[in-house]
């Protein structure tokens, strides 16, 4: 029983007519990182809200830290820590006072050392006595997470912890997640980024339109999606045809005059590919290496782009500026 931190079966939640969660289920092992991957509006935040007792589900059995969220709300709350999508810090209080308040609410005595330890760990010591309203977005996120860690909760929920962060802060956040897991904390993480889930999670559930459309380890999921490929664009149809004959593994797209050739993106494979084109006197107009992203995962798993809006944007930007958006190409075929 101690091995399962979170157990969910048949979770349903509707807002009026709109079904947000359509009977989802999953299990999270203690001391692991579980990532829920999905586009905006997939139901990730609703799932977090239900698991953290902010929202009541319409149906489903949910146990967090061994307690039923419906009947043992108090025990669930004592076991968890939550960092939501929007920094939940008190802007009129200083960083130190925010942490102090958390320690007070958790009835931690003589919290001075704990507070300064957290400030140091999150590189906030210098700004500790400034009001949080003066903090940058990244600092606020860090303070938010530091507040969540006060009292060392067994299970931590992170709802899109790195959305909007610069690459450096993002890596700091990943480091912290890894440290927490090493200490035995269970992490439930939602993200829109495949690489983030890939980097951190032991198990990933892909959520789309309120359903878990795939579930497994990062390796298992990646096997299901199109791998890295090279995209070649030619000036004429004739050139495309001859290239397709030379590279039979490629998929041609006549309207775009492109050929997609699967490959692993290493320099050796690329050199071989280019050499082969050269041998046959072929020259591509444009050359790009395409690594799989969330759109590919959704395309592969649901047969539909991740979300209508970004697909439309992708189509638009494809027309206006083809060369800079190789990654959005997946939505076109």
């Amino acid at each position, binding site marked *: 029983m101690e091995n399962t931190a979170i157990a969910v079966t048949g979770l349903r939640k509707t807002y009026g007519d709109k079904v947000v969660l359509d009977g989802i289920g999953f299990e999270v092992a203690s001391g692991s990182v579980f990532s829920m991957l999905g586009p905006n509006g997939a139901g990730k935040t609703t799932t977090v809200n239900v698991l953290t007792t902010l929202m009541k589900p319409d149906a489903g059995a949910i146990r967090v830290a061994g307690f039923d969220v419906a009947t043992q709300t108090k025990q669930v709350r004592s076991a968890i820590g939550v960092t939501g999508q929007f920094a*939940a810090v008190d802007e009129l*209080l200083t960083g130190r006072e925010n942490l102090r308040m958390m320690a*007070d609410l958790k009835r931690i005595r003589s919290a001075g050392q704990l507070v300064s330890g957290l400030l140091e760990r999150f590189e906030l010591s210098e700004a500790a006595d400034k009001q949080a309203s003066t903090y940058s977005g990244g600092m606020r996120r860090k303070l938010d997470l530091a507040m969540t860690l006060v009292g060392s909760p067994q299970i931590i929920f992170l709802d899109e912890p790195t959305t909007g962060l610069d690459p450096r802060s993002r890596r700091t956040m990943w480091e912290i997640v890894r440290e927490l897991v090493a200490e035995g904390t269970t992490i439930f993480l939602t993200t829109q980024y495949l690489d983030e889930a890939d980097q951190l999670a032991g198990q990933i559930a892909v959520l789309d339109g309120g359903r878990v459309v795939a579930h497994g380890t990062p390796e298992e999921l990646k096997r299901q999606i199109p791998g890295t490929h090279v995209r070649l664009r030619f000036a004429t149809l004739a050139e495309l045809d001859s290239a397709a004959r030379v590279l039979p593994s490629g998929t041609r797209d006549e309207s775009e005059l492109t050929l997609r050739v699967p490959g692993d993106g290493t320099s050796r494979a690329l050199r071989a590919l280019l050499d082969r084109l050269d041998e046959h006197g072929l020259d591509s107009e444009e050359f790009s290496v395409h690594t799989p992203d969330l759109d590919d995962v959704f395309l592969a798993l649901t047969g539909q782009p991740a979300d209508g809006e970004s697909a439309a944007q992708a189509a638009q930007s494809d027309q206006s500026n083809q060369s800079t958006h190789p990654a959005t190409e997946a939505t076109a075929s």
Partner: protein
Amino acid sequence: MSTPSTALGDSAIMLRRNFRHTVRNPVTVFNAILFPIVMMLMFVYVFGGAFKVPGSYVDYAVPGLIVMAITYGLGPTATSVNDDMTKGIINRFKTMDVSRGAVLTGHVVATTVRSVIAVGAIIGVGFAMGFRSHGSLLDWLGAIGLVLLLAFATSWLTVAMGLAAKSVESAGLATVPLIMLPFLSSAFVPASTMKTGVKQFAEYQPFTPIIETLRGLLSGGHLTTSHTVQALAWCVGFAVLGYLWAVSTFKKRA
């Protein structure tokens, strides 16, 4: 559910938070404490001479200014309650094992205390400006009781308004009627001197009986039973309405 002692502890932590907010927000301090004093200086030294009231004007105006000191401090409470609800912080508290009502009682107690400080300042400056009371100790205790009751009642009402408002701006606006009502009461001139229509409004609105009762107590015993009963009824009514509205809105937004 949490035991009374933890609820009390949580409320104390929230109260400390709200006090810090007040101290760090100069606008709040100005609105709640300095502005009523500025009003008093204006009414007593500028307009007061033109008004016909029984006795000295400062004696007449102080009870009304006490009520204004209470209502003027409400705006910041409504906005900060709304701020708590619209920003992420409330969700943090709600996912913790923290007494649910503590956030609200923190606001109510902080607002009440702020009002009492503002009232103290008004009375202090009033004395310096020549205000004299003929009330007995018992009258004063009665006046203090009524001030506390009114501050408590309007705090709950304001917290409810802050919770119900869709945005911080509309929360601030929601308290404007509470701030305006004392102007249309017997706070600065007797209702009997007003034009028909306004006069009736002034006579039947909540603040006139409250101010008249305070005035009676502070001047030493010209209490009208009907005013006193109305004053208490309005205060209790505000408190009950505010509390119920606040709690139900809080649950809905939770």
